[in-house]
Structures are given as structure tokens and as C-alpha cells.
């Protein structure tokens, strides 16, 4: 059965099915997955021998070697394990802009990555920044969970009031495990995004920050005397649109994006700027592949 949804089209699914999530760090999965781990464990793939020590499982002793060499060796096998994949979506009011809205874009991106994870039997969890601190979201595993995952995504509505830093902090408290975390946000928080990213860094997670910006933010098409109202805190800015003002705005935007990129790069996080006009499949198959999130 090919699942169809607004978030994931059959073509996109077909494209995603060939991909898998990659982590630059080694994590210990709780359950056996399809992922080869550096940990030795039970699997069919032989890895190495080691000397038997007291207490080792007798089932793994290589009796053939014992017969030949009269020494007890233990056969080691590569363990295949699962990966934790977290998608953290910023569903604040500011994400509800653009065409498609940044939130819709973020959802589609999260769905794509989550699907890759589900297909590879990774553990997938999708949460939003504004989620209450104690309310942990469901975790899915396996292709069967696709519908549940999509349904969960569909129910994410814009307008969550929590500041980014607090939301990320809550996320970190809820999810102690290691793994890949992808933060999808516009980073437009008056209090700054730095604290939020520091929390993620502290969890020793493989962090990807995908900043989603709409076309209206990159190339504002405004003219005349305007009273700009911030959709999140009702803050007002009165502007008279002028060429110098627009120029200055673009300079500021570029500086903001560059600041975020540098902040992330210095701290070992991957930063990716996504414009809502760029189709998700291209973003995943080109940009994210280049950055090593998928392969």
C-alpha cells in the first residue's frame, strides 16, 4: 500500500525510500534495529574474536578454535541497532506565514525525514517547541506507523506561544536519549535562538538546525506607510517603506542568517537555510544529502 497524504506525495515517498538517516555520532539504541552499530552484539555478521573471560555467554564460544588451539575464544558479532530521530518543529505564530506557510513546509520536511527513519526502523519522534514540558509525544517505529505519524503532524497547528529557548529546554528534559535532532524553525525569536541551540548542544545530540524563511521575509513586497504588527507579541513597527530601508532590512536579514550559520558551525551543529519556495524533495535529496543527514 502506498500511503498518500498532503505532506508526502507518492513520488516523494518513492524518492525517500531509498534514503537513510545518518548520524555522525554513535548512539546506543535500545532495540535492535537495522543499523550496524560499532557495538558488538548479536547478529549474523561476524566482527572479531576476543579472549574469553569469566562470565561470558558460553553460546558465543568458538568451539572450533578451542579444538584447534585449545584456547577459549569468544566470537563477536556486529550488533545492528536502531537510531533515535527527533524532529522538533517550531509551530509559533510566525511560522504561519508564506505560501506555502513555513509551518507547512516544516511539517513536510519533518514528515520526509521521519519517513526515512520509519522505513529504516529507526525510532522517530516528532515534537513541537510549544509542547507542554511533561507531555511527551508518541514514538513511532516501522513503516506501519507512517499513518500515525502523519496524523500527528496534521494536528500540529500554528500559534503556540512558547519562546524557542523554553520549548527546546522542555524538549531536552523530555527526551534524554541520544540521536539525531532536527530543529525546524525560523529562529525569529526576539529573545534570540542562541540559548535554545545551547540546550540542544548540551545533550550531545547530532543537531541539525533548519531555518525556514518565507519569500516574503527574504524579498518583502511592501510599499507606502505601514504599521507592521508582530503576529506573536503584537509589537508594532511603523515604517515608511523606502529604498534605503529595504536595503538595510536585507542587510540585516543576511547578517542574521550568517550569524545563525556561524553559531551552529562553531558548535558542531549543522545549519541549513531553507526557503519555502524550494521543494522539499530537492532540499532532502540535494542539500541534506550534502550535509550528511541522509544518504
Amino acid at each position, binding site marked *: 500500500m502506498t500511503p498518500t497524504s498532503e505532506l508526502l506525495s507518492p513520488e516523494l515517498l518513492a524518492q525517500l525510500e531509498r534514503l537513510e538517516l545518518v548520524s555522525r555520532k554513535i548512539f546506543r539504541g535500545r532495540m535492535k534495529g537495522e543499523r550496524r552499530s560499532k557495538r558488538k552484539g548479536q547478529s549474523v555478521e561476524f566482527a572479531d574474536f576476543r579472549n574469553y573471560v569469566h562470565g561470558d555467554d558460553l553460546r558465543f564460544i568458538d568451539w572450533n578454535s578451542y579444538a584447534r588451539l585449545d584456547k577459549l575464544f569468544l566470537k563477536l558479532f556486529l550488533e545492528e541497532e536502531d537510531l533515535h530521530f527527533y524532529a522538533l518543529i517550531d509551530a509559533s505564530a510566525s511560522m504561519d506565514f508564506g505560501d506555502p506557510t513555513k509551518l507547512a513546509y516544516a511539517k513536510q520536511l519533518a514528515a520526509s525525514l521521519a519517513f526515512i527513519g520509519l522505513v529504516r526502523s529507526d525510532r522517530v519522534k516528532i515534537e513541537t517547541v510549544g509542547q507542554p514540558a511533561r507531555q511527551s509525544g508518541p514514538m513511532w517505529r516501522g513503516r506501519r506507523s507512517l499513518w500515525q505519524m502523519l496524523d500527528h503532524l496534521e494536528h500540529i497547528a500554528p500559534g503556540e506561544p512558547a519562546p524557542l529557548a523554553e520549548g527546546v529546554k522542555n524538549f531536552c528534559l523530555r527526551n534524554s536519549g541520544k540521536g539525531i535532532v532536527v530543529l525546524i524553525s525560523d529562529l525569529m525569536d526576539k529573545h534570540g535562538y542562541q540559548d535554545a541551540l545551547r540546550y540542544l548542544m548540551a545533550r550531545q545530540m547530532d543537531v541539525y538546525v533548519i531555518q525556514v524563511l518565507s519569500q516574503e521575509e527574504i524579498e518583502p513586497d511592501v510599499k507606502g506607510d505601514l504599521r507592521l504588527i*508582530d503576529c506573536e507579541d503584537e509589537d508594532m513597527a511603523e515604517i515608511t517603506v523606502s529604498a534605503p530601508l529595504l536595503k538595510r532590512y536585507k542587510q540585516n*536579514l543576511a547578517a542574521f542568517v550568517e550569524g545563525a550559520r556561524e553559531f551552529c558551525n562553531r558548535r558542531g551543529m549543522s545549519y541549513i537555510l531553507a526557503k519555502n519556495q524550494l521543494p522539499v524533495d530537492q532540499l532532502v535529496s540535494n542539500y541534506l544529502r550534502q550535509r550528511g543527514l541522509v544518504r
Partner: protein
Amino acid sequence: MRSALGNIFETAGNYGAKASGLLFERTGMLMAWQWLLLGLVPILIVLLYFLKLKRQPLEVPSTYLWHKSIEDLRVNSVWQRLRRSLLLYLQLLFIGLVAWTLLRPTIQGKRLIGNRFIFLVDNSASMGATDVEPTRLDEAKKRVGELIDEMRTGDVAMLVSFSDGAKVEQSFSEEPRELHRRLEAIQQTDRSTSLAEALRVASGLANPGRSSNREDAGDVQVAEAEPARLYIFSDGKFPKVKDFSFGHLEPVYVIIGEQDAANVAIAAFTTARGEDNLDHLQAFARLDNHGGEKVSVNAELSLDGELIDAKRIEIEPGDSTGVEYNPESVETGVLKLSIDANDALAIDNAAWTTINARRRGKVLLVKQDDDEYLERALGTDRVRELADVTIRTADFLSKPDYRKQADGGGYDVVIYDRCRPEQMPQANTLFIGQLPLGGDWKADAKVDVPQIIDVDHAHPLMHIVAMGDVLIVEGTPLFPPSGGTTLIDTQAGAMFAIAPREGYEDAVLGFTIVDPAGKVGVGTNWPTKASFPVFVLNVIEYLGGARSSLDSGSVRPGQPVAWRSDTPAERIQVKPPQGAPFDVARGPLNTFNVTSTADVGVYEVRAGEQGLGSFAVNLFDSNESDVRPALELGVGDYKVVGSTHREPARRDLWKIVLLAALAVLLVEWYIYNRRVYV
């Protein structure tokens, strides 16, 4: 009711108007409440602007970056503030301009006096002079246009153009647009100028009472005479107008043209056959210098477009110089004389004369039996070259053959020696000792031995005819009808005269050549003198049409031409120098009367495929050629002093101001939308 405030404004306005050279006068004086209303507009704009211009609310994801940008820009806040108010200034400027437009701003605030105007626009040849750019006529039209713009509601104006005649372009109208349209339609002509007709037309239309008969009790005045202002836009180059009174008209003569305008003109151009050799052609021209400086021009003579001679002529200021060319044997063709003068008037820098195929004249001599001198004089070789002479006695006059020929234009000239026909022939005539029919000619009782005191040698008939030694035994003093010219004058009265008759000319000799009934048997000793055959030759050449076929003479623009031709065709085709050829039907006097001769140049005449010849129309009018405008006009006993300066005209500025306002509006719109700053 006018309030005190309104009066104050008006007084202030008047002071301003008097003080300034470039006057900005308001015609529509506003009431106080209107002033107040107008004054409130800018105040309201400022208030509205500062009471907060309505900013359009727009929800954005985050004002974070915008705030930052605004703060960055605030660094140079003075410029920012100025820039922010730029729209306000522009709006105020716009409102100011619109308000000014409503006040109907003008330059030079003298009003047209009166409410009835007659504009006489000279479109004669001299108005084509280019001393005023582009031409005098255009300048005149421009000035009339300015005055038409000047008219207020209720004003009426009439437009008359005049050259040698007058044309009412537009009778009294208060429609400026119609007047402008008609004004633009006035065309330059090559004609000479006569103001008299234009004045009569204007006066007749302006003062209707004058055209009706006051003596007649039954005559009803169709309209009351009303005073009108008569503007004459002209260079004043026309003869003094006699017997005219302006009456209710108040004349204003606006001089069009520069006083220092210079012009070199061909004042005359004609050809003649050599006296000794008829094939030998001579061309004479007179060049006038109507200017203040000595000029030197090249006068080129060309035959049918090919240059055959050129001369360098120097003419003193105000002087005229004759030029003579000897093109030798020229049978037919068009001679063109052109000068390369770079002067104000171009139309008189070229002149044409046409040499048509010589046509043999047809001469009938109706003689008495005793005459032999005339017959002998008509028998010379020269006469035989020029004409076919038929000699008959007086009884021929009663024969049907004569009647047919005479009525059908079969003769060019008929010489009646002491006899006269029952009906005047369709030909030129020379009567000897007899008066023509009709009673127009009068004669006194016979006088003995009249002494010749004057001979009009200028007339072709008396050309080089020496009468000094001629004695007349007996003569009848003649009184030619109006239009007649005395050619030989004696102390008793005219002995030889010529007068026109319906396209022909009748010459009458008051004495007889032969007089057997007289005391001495002869009437005069003239036949024994050398001048007699010359005289007869002149008669053949002039009245017999031999000369006219050589040179059609000078025709002024607009003058009718009576074209004579042997052609049996009922219609001839005339191709004017400009425009399409037209047909002319045979007239009642066996001539073709060409009336459309408005343009100077050569007119070709054809009958179907057969070329009949051509005639030339030349300006040859020293009044028109002298382009220095007259400073005053003589009309009756009245002298109208001209003014060169522009008739004070109130020129409306509101259109320009409104355009400026629109431009400001555009700039404001552009700045508002595009936000582009200097």
C-alpha cells in the same frame, strides 16, 4: 455682497499688479469666504498629515529585523525627517498650484477694451516675408490668436482676411474655438493689398446702419450700429484709402514686420523683338533694392529651365537698376529671371515671361476709294511678316461675308477709314475720322490746325512715333469713354485716343489722312513722314495682336487673363504653377477668361493634346516688394498710427500651472510608490 476682506485682497492685488512688470493678475476676484475656504485647504492638509497619516496595518512574522533596520536608519534622522515630510511639501505645492490655477493666473494684465472686435488679417504677398519668424502672416495669426484667447464670455469677434479683396473668414462669433479654427485656415496669397474693401466689409458688418439708406423712409435699420474695435494686422503696404470714415469703429493698427527688413525685388521683366530684326529678342528687367544697404546679386536668365545668361548686379540702397539680356533667337519658351538675394521676401526673387509662337494677325482695312497711304503703309514687308491684311471698300461692310467674319472673331483688328459698321465687330478697331458706335465716345466741333502738344510715347501704339513735324489740317477733339487714354493731345483736345470695349480696344483718330473735301486735299502731312509706317506697324503689332502673342505682358496675381486662341475647341486646359489643372470654357467674347491666377509662376494653356502657349503671373508690385512696414495708415482724413509692440494681451497661465501641478502629483506618486530619493 463684497466684504471688507475681499476689498483688501483686491486692493493688494491691484498694488501688486501695478508694481510688477510681469503682472500676475487675477480676473476672477474671489469673495472673502472663498478666500477663507482656499486658505483652509493647506492648513487641513498639514493637520491631517501631522494628526497621523493613516498607516496601513500589516501583520508580519516578526518585527525583529524591521525594528533593527529602522534603528539603523535613524542615525541620520534629520535627513530622514526631511524625507518623511517630502510628501507633505509636495502635497502642499500641488494644492498651491491648483489654487493658483483656480485664480486663473495671467501674464501682462491689460484687458481687451470693449466687447466687439474685428480682426483684419493681411494675407497679401508681402505678408510672406520672413523677417519675422516664421512669416509675417504666422506672426499676425499668432497675435490674433492671443487676442481671441483674451475674449471673455459675451465678447464677439469677426475675422476678415484681405489682400486685393477682402474675405470674411468668420462673422461675429463668440466661439473662440471657431475663431481659432478659421484663423488657422487663413492662407498666404501672392496678391497685392487693398485695405479699402476690407474696411468696407468690416464697416458694413460692424455698423449695419451705414449700409442702409437713411434717406429712404421705407428703409428699416436692420440693426443698431455698435462700436467695435478694429484691429488691423498688416505691414501697411497698400495705397491710402480714400473716402472712408471709421464711424463707430475704433482702429488699432498692429504693425507686423521689422523696420530694417531688406528685400531685393524684380520689379519688371519683359521681352521685345529687335526693331531691325524680328528674330532678335531682348529681355529687360528692373531690379529694386528696398533696403538700407547696397546689395550685389546674381541675376540669372534661363530659358525653359536652362541657364542662358547671368549677370552680377549691384544696386544702391533704395535704388533700382535695369538689366538687359540678349538671348538672341528665341522662338518660343519660358524665360525665367531669378536673383539669388537672401532677403525677406522670396516671391519677388523670380519672374517669368513667356514667348509664345508668333501668331499672324488678321487685319481688315475698310478704306475709301481715294485712300492710298494706308494701303501702302500696310504693304510693307514688315507688316506682311506680321499679319494677313485684307483690304476692302466701305460697301463690304453690308455684305454677309463681313458680318460673319466680324461677329465670329475672324479679324484681330479692323481699320475703318471714314466709315463705321452697323455693329461693332468682335475685334480691336481703329477708327479714322469717325466715332465708334455706342455713344460712349464724344467729339467736339471741328477745329482748324490743331497743334500737337503731347504724345504718349509710353503707349505701344505711339512707341517711337515722332510727331514733331506732323501737321494736321483739321481735327475733331475727342472725349474717350472712362478707361480711355489720350495718345495725341493738341491744344484743342485729344486727337488720338484709345479706350477698352468688352475685352477689345477701340482707337480713334480725330483727323483724317486723306480729305479730298477739305481745303488742301489731304488731312495731314503725316503719310509723308517716316513716323507714319511706324505708326501703322504699331497698330498691327498692338491692336493686331502681334505683340501680345510675343509677350503676354505681366499679369498680376489674381488678375484675370483673357486668352485668345484660334483653337476651335470649346474648352482649354490651364495648368497653374501649383495645384491641379483646370478647364476654362470659351467666353462670350470669343476669349477664354482665366480667373484662377492667384499664384505667381507660369500657367500652361492647352487644348487637349495641343499646347497653345503659356502666360506668366508675376508680383511686380513695389508696394509688396518694399517690405519695410508702414508706420501709419492713411484712411480718409484719419491717420492710424501703428504700434509695433505686442498689443497687451493677457496670456492665460492656468494651463501651464495645471501641468506643473500634475507634474508635482506625478512626482509625489512616484516617490510614494517607488521611494526613490535624490
